[in-house]
């Protein structure tokens, strides 16, 4: 059997929540045991679309990310499970909590580094994404979330076929990559941005083509861009850390020091030069 991976392109995720909704459509009120017993009507997210608003008015973007069981190859949940075969890895790579064998001990919830396992209080069960294994076994080529994704951002692929994409992708919590070996890959996860608009307060005009030089304090590396036709500069895909920025237009100059992107993106607003 070919091994499967999820490849999620964040750049193409429009935040529609279809993945999250159809997961519920498939599992709430439907019993697919031993792959999965019904999911509670509300409060559980075997597939969860997360969102984060970045920046401040008027430099604002929204970052969405579908979050789910990462179907790890070294799944801590399998190791922590005291019941033989209650959590197992299928040949296609999907990790399943057997809804009949699960004893409800909660060990797996404690060890999952991705908080992707939920506890069903009514059924005394640990539950999570199954990759819609019951549908795959019935001839489906992809789980509900991938089927419902309108833009092709979320894909369920043969690992071999996805190799090229995987080489450019990241996993969630990269520090765990070697240890747990997740099978969900993200493309184009956004970094931080530093942005602003440069204008001439006397002429009341934006300044087009101002030289903006951003220096990473940690590495000393400098990035150079020019302001666009709106007087805007956007440094995107930055890491978390300290930066300094110098803006030069003709004889005018402005410097910003200690721009710290650790916690958030930075909009410097409309800068009079």
């Amino acid at each position, binding site marked *: 059997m070919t091994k499967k991976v999820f490849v999620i392109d964040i750049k193409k995720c*429009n935040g529609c929540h279809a993945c999250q909704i159809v997961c519920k459509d498939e599992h709430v009120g439907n019993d697919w045991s031993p792959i999965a017993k019904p999911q509670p009507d509300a409060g559980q997210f075997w597939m969860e679309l997360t969102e984060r608003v970045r920046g401040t008015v008027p430099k604002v973007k929204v970052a969405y990310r579908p979050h789910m069981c990462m179907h790890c190859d070294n799944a801590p949940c399998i190791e922590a499970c005291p019941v033989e075969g209650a959590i197992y890895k299928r040949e296609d790579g999907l990790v399943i909590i057997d809804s009949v064998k699960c004893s409800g001990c909660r060990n797996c919830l404690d060890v999952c580094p991705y908080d992707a396992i939920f506890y069903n209080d009514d059924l005394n069960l640990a539950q999570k994404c199954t990759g819609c294994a019951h549908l795959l076994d*019935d001839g489906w080529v992809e789980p509900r979330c991938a089927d419902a994704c309108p833009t092709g951002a979320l894909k369920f692929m043969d690992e071999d076929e996805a190799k090229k994409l995987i080489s450019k992708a990241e996993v969630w919590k990269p520090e765990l990559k070697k240890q747990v070996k997740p099978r969900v890959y993200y493309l184009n996860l956004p970094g931080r941005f530093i942005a602003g608009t440069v204008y001439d307060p006397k002429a009341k005009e934006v300044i087009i083509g101002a030289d903006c030089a951003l220096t990473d304090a940690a590495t000393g590396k400098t990035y150079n861009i020019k302001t666009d036709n*709106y007087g805007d500069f956007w440094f995107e895909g930055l890491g978390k850390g300290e930066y300094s920025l110098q803006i030069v237009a003709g004889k005018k100059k402005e410097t910003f020091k200690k721009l710290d992107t650790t916690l958030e993106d930075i909009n410097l607003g409309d800068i009079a030069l």
Partner: protein
Amino acid sequence: MASRKTKDKTVIRALGLGGLLGGSSEGLVDVKDGKIVRVRPFHYDWKYKKEDIKTWKMERNGKVFEQPWKSLPGPFSLAYKKRVYSPNRIKFPMKRVDWDPDGERNPQNRGKSKYVRITWDEATDILAKEIKRIHKAYGPYGILVQGDGHGECMTIHTPHGHSGSLLDKMGGFTQQVRNPDSWEGWYWGSKHVWGQGIQGGMFPAGNIVKDTTEHAEMVLFWGCDPETTPWGFTGQMPSRLTYFWKDAGIDQVYICPDVNYGCAVHADKWIPVLPNTDAALQLAIAYTWIKEGTYNKEYVKTHVVGFDKFKAYVMGEEEDDVPKTPEWASKKCGVPEWTIKALARQFARKVTSIAHYFGGGYVRGPFSHEPGRLEVCLLGMQGLGGPGRHHHQITYFGLPRSNGLSGTFFWNPDLADRLRTPSLTTINAWQKQLIPKTYIHDAIEANEPMTFYGSGAIEVDTTDQFKKYVYPLPKKEGGTEIHMIWSDTPCRTTCWNNGNATELALRNPKIECIVTQHPWMENDTLFSDIILPSNTHMEVGDIVSSIRGGTSIPNVALCDQAIEPVGESKSNFEVVLEVAKKLGMEKAMTGGKTDEDLKKEMFTNMRLDKLTTWKEFREKGYYLYSVADDWEDDSPGLRKFYDDPEKNPLPTPTGKLEFYSEALAKNFPHDRERPPVPKWIEKGPTHDERLSSERAKMFPLILMSNHGRWRVHAQADDIPWTREAPTCKIRGWDGYMYEPCWIHPSEALERGIKHGDIVKVFNERGIVLAGAYVTERIRPNVAYMDHGARVDMIKVGEIDRGGAINTISGSGTSSRNAVGQATTAYLVQVERLSMEEMDRWRREYPEAFEREYDPASGLCVNAWLEGGEK
């Protein structure tokens, strides 16, 4: 691994919620053990081979855009089974407990008193008797039919207007005329610049997607959210198109007060304009172009009339006028002067189209016809109709033409009477006594005849706007005030203007009987005397064409019944048929035809008999249209007018783009709210809702409202799964799920409001409770709420807990002589709700807090049933 049974059968559905004899946003519904087990996108190759269907593609800069082989429904479509089995479903006929048709009617208790279960036989007996009584006492126009608007996609069992069909056969009725509720500004404005259009929008608009793809360098999403409004109608094709445009290098600029959902993911530039101040921004752009000589002077010379008058106004050459400079505009619209100039120059430099998908915030505020007209003027100044210069309702119009498609759009004259008639209430003013939907509450309360210009019907000719109407008609023409209401579209309170006034008007003793047929116990239904349970499209079979633009592959499908009706519910047609039986009108209603007869008739009306056979269609269950062989030759948009305006005149009086409308000048010489040249209107007799108003001292925020992300107007407010999205509902400290009110952190800080607080949004017209959504996605000076949340009255006509923001929108129409709705951009204040105030309300209005409520899905029918569900 052994496979298990994951379904018993699969049926096709059009999951859009636009209705009107047309579908889209199709899906497949899997059914198991008589229940809906899942709803999923429609893969068109289910029973067709891909190679049998000819498809289109478009290219730009090496990037290719093709038709997806699956439908792209929005999330509420995919969650529709929760609507079908909602705890808010009405399962049997009901009568208001203190409404006695033979005694006390207690109209003052509408919206307050509960209901008892009655039988279909009892309900239809009462109704037949009431109809006869009203006809005898007042004449047929004594009954108002509210039978219009959006809804589920069906043809034979279409959700609206069957009561109109019945009453039309019995001497007529008073028609509530559906106004162009999502495109007021183009209807009341743009039509006077470029002529009739389709519903006021640019027309012809064929093939403009390809032309913009190939030639545009920039698209302005002006008050447009391609990631919201299209969901309810055709799904998510605009999302794919805008991603493609980005890949192809077409700049996307969002001009709107909020980081709407399209702006959140697609914008190269966000220009946060104050709500309903676009006219100032537009005038400053025109000013910049005129001053810098960067408009298409040749085009203006040959294609425009009245440019001199327009120019004089823009440049401040008229006696009492100031030049509409960026500096002037900046103070009105809140966009920095330098950014206005930069935008104006980009617009002049780059080949630019403007995109909308109908709208909310931009096009239906006070005086919405002014930005509607000015937008056409700007496009006109840059050569509207030229390569890459169009006005889009994005993908709704302008996708490639299908082969052999003849249309079941509601104006298709070939449709059989029973198929066509119900939807007439939605598109035409076809009765004699009319009330524009925006005036319903005023008409009920009026003691003198009302006059107004234009019926507001969405398909009538521009000249209708100059026609004077009166309600009620003179007695000799059968005129009478209305005394009964029959509604199948009970969302007037939450989706139209001044819902609070509407709630109170529905208690007027003049209205002796209100009957509502609806699947859910919500909104105006709560003000009814008799309630008839209609069912959803899952419970009835039909034939539906999904040919609205934006469908991945246009098609017609047989939508076989998915499940048995819930409770004693019947389709909206069957509901009316039950009443017709008691009136001896059964045969007249059915025309002796069965559903199967009508499906075949529809098949023929669509000319599908020229493309396939009924047998094959029946077997496959659907027909897929190929793209027309010669689609690439179709002239895009107004290209012919662009090429030769003399030979291809516009449908305006002069045949040109009218920057000055002689017709408006002649018909409304004293109208300062919609003058012959489009202008900036600070305030007028109809509205005083700007930050410059005296009222802004008390109500300092502009309330902006767009179509809902998680609803289609009032539809789909009860889905537990969408309600879990962070922008759908906010759980208050009392456990109630509140409608979010977006507010900027600076405004929140000033008011001591924290994210998640229960807040009251209010003005003189009432109070709406909401959950504070403190975010950088909205600019300062603005409070933002989606319209269409279900009303949940704490005090009828005054305090709403459900978040139905239109309850406090203004009563006034678009302007004095335009009967559109103005349900965005009005003044409010937002304050944190104290526990003391909530407690006081709990004491004063205990029944509102004692009603059964389910936080997951919201309101419950049990709340309104005496003794709960039996």
